């Protein structure tokens, strides 16, 4: 290990020490479901980065839903939620659709969508948004693995989030997990819903794996989102046992493993 790395580690330790010292100022949010909340000591830290990945390209809708649900849990009611993405995200995964967001539980009046031409601009706009008082939550959706989203940039985001006590949610579509300053990291798959009757699809269900947690244990749950009450409930497997997946593998690898 080189000296520079040791230096960085020392800084990390000092940083971590500070984190825990000023813990009393921190606020937390919860899932509203005991099974999940029990793995966090006090709950999910509000002023922090929470990162959400889609397990496969087709799970973009589920990952989007999960991140909005988290933002709704974390943000004060009626506070604005800002969504920062790149210009071309619209073509790739569609635009956030107001009527659908309304159905999902997010009042569209609260949403501000910011489009940027580069991923650097996304991070800059996100940083500015995080530092603004009164912001409910900031959803940052850079496409794929931008070079600029490195340890330093994510650390900067984390610091801003901590200072303002505003949650930052990183939506990573088309990306593979890499090391950064995120406090929790989730891998989301769509999961079969409980039919709401007459063979119709029911409430959204997520197969959520917590693959990194700075505050405690990791885990995997089936979570159902109640859009009217804004709560997660533990879902029951619908048909047959779930196929277990390894805790983490990049989407590319998985595709080759299953052969599609």
């Amino acid at each position: 290990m080189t000296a520079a790395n040791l230096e960085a580690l020392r800084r990390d330790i000092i940083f971590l020490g500070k984190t825990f010292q000023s813990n009393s100022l921190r606020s937390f949010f919860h899932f509203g479901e005991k099974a999940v909340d029990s793995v966090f000591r006090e709950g999910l830290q509000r002023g922090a980065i929470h990162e959400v990945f889609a397990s496969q390209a087709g799970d973009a809708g589920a990952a989007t839903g999960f991140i909005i649900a988290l933002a709704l849990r974390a943000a004060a009611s009626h506070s604005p939620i800002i969504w920062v993405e790149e210009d071309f995200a619209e073509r790739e995964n569609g635009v956030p659709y107001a009527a659908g967001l309304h159905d999902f539980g997010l009042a569209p009046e609260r949403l501000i969508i910011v489009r940027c031409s580069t991923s650097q601009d996304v991070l800059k706009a996100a940083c500015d948004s995080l530092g603004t008082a009164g912001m409910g939550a900031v959803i940052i959706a850079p496409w794929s693995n931008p070079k600029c989203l490195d340890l330093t940039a994510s650390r900067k985001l984390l610091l801003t989030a901590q200072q303002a006590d505003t949650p930052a949610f990183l939506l990573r579509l088309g990306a593979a997990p890499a090391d950064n300053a995120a406090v929790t990291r989730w891998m989301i798959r769509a999961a079969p819903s409980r039919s709401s009757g007459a063979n119709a699809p029911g409430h959204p269900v997520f197969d959520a794996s917590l693959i990194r947690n700075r505050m405690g244990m990791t885990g995997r749950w089936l979570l159902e989102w109640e859009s009217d009450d804004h709560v997660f409930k533990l879902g029951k497997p619908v048909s047959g046992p779930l196929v277990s997946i390894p805790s983490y593998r990049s989407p590319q690898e998985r595709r080759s493993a299953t052969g599609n």
Partner: protein
Amino acid sequence: MLRLMAVDEKAAAAGLYRGMALTDARAQFEKLDTAFAAPRQDNALLEKLADWCDRYTPLVAVDEPHGLILDVTGCLHLHGGEEKLLRDIHASLKRHGICVRSAIAVNPAAARALARYGNGGIAGGGIAGADLKQLLYRLPLTSLEVEHAHLSGLKRAGLLTVGDVDVLPRAALTARFGARTVNRLDALFSRHSEPISPRRIVPICMAERRMAEPLTFMEAIEGVLRELAGELAQELKARVEGAREVEAVFFRADGNIRRLRIETGRPVTDAEILMRLLKERLASLSDPLDAGYGFDIIRLAALRVEKTMARQTSLDNHAEETDKIGTLVDRLSIRLGSKRVLRPVFVDTHIPERAAILEPATLTKVAAAARWNAGDVAGDPPQRPIRMFHPPEPIEATFEIPDAAPAQFVWRKARHIIVLAEGPERIAPEWWRENSRALTRDYYRLEDDAGRRFWVFREGLYERNDPDPKWFVHGIFA
């Protein structure tokens, strides 16, 4: 046949005139120097000159052909009086090789007539009433610019000047030569006003600085901007208004003009915020402000304002926070462009893609909760997708029974086997819209075996003349 479109002073003196056939002119003068007329370039030049004239007054109107009308009311003291103003215009334009005829008068019609048909020049101007009347009386009849038939009628009656016509009884004049002739006379003598139409939005209030020495350093320019922002804010405060649209205009010494416009989401009254927005705009320019020879005039004008209420600080700091969010929206809009900072806006229509459009956040006022989805019943799962595709993406659907939900479909090269389905929800096109050739759509909510939820539709109906309807994915659910 080629005709002369314009002649210069020398040619006019030699007897050539506008509208003359080129062959006739060539017959008189063998070595005539001619060029093809370029009306479009002429107009472009005129527009440029009009822009340049902005330095004298923000009220500049184009007066076809080849004319400009400047409303200098209240601006004269800035230029040291009428004569100095005209001399300045003449001197500056002469340097660019442009020959100018000009006049200043109490109304635009008189100034125009004096410049075009009178002696023009500096001597032709004058605001004093009696002198002006004398000058106008001496103008030829053509300066009335009435129809050719009426003009020759007036001439036949032995009238030669505007003065001859003006003394005639008006009733008879109207009866014989039309209301237009009388109107023209009235306009000349300020008995009835003909408004001019300025090319640009007339600023509601503005502040400007004229520099004795052109400014070249960015720090100095920013300093001036800061002072101007302060003055503008003062003026706005006095009017109990806030700026929604502000324009900064930089007049470079060599005639180049740069305009920067900023729009804000809510009325701005604070000089500090205004300055921050201006700086953001300056920093975001893809083509940065080039001082070159230096700026000799800098102007800051509020183009659009809105009444502001005197604010009372509330007990919770909710209003303050809303304010901060507004400032953030303004800053991002200026940095990224207002088309990139958006808010969903509710539109009362059943067509899904039109029901929720995204509009620039600086334009939309935060509306009260709209009825985003009329069909939503408490306790029901979401009826509309969380992300929507524009345009809808075509899929290959296979089904067991026609006119029902597909059993499976292929989208983006992946096959989805449908487990749960709900539908159809029939949405008919809005036939009253122009060029609406859209077909009726049947929407289905589908869930595949992996738990992914889709919103797909079939365009066209089976029972009607559409044997091969197309299928599309319009959105994805959470």
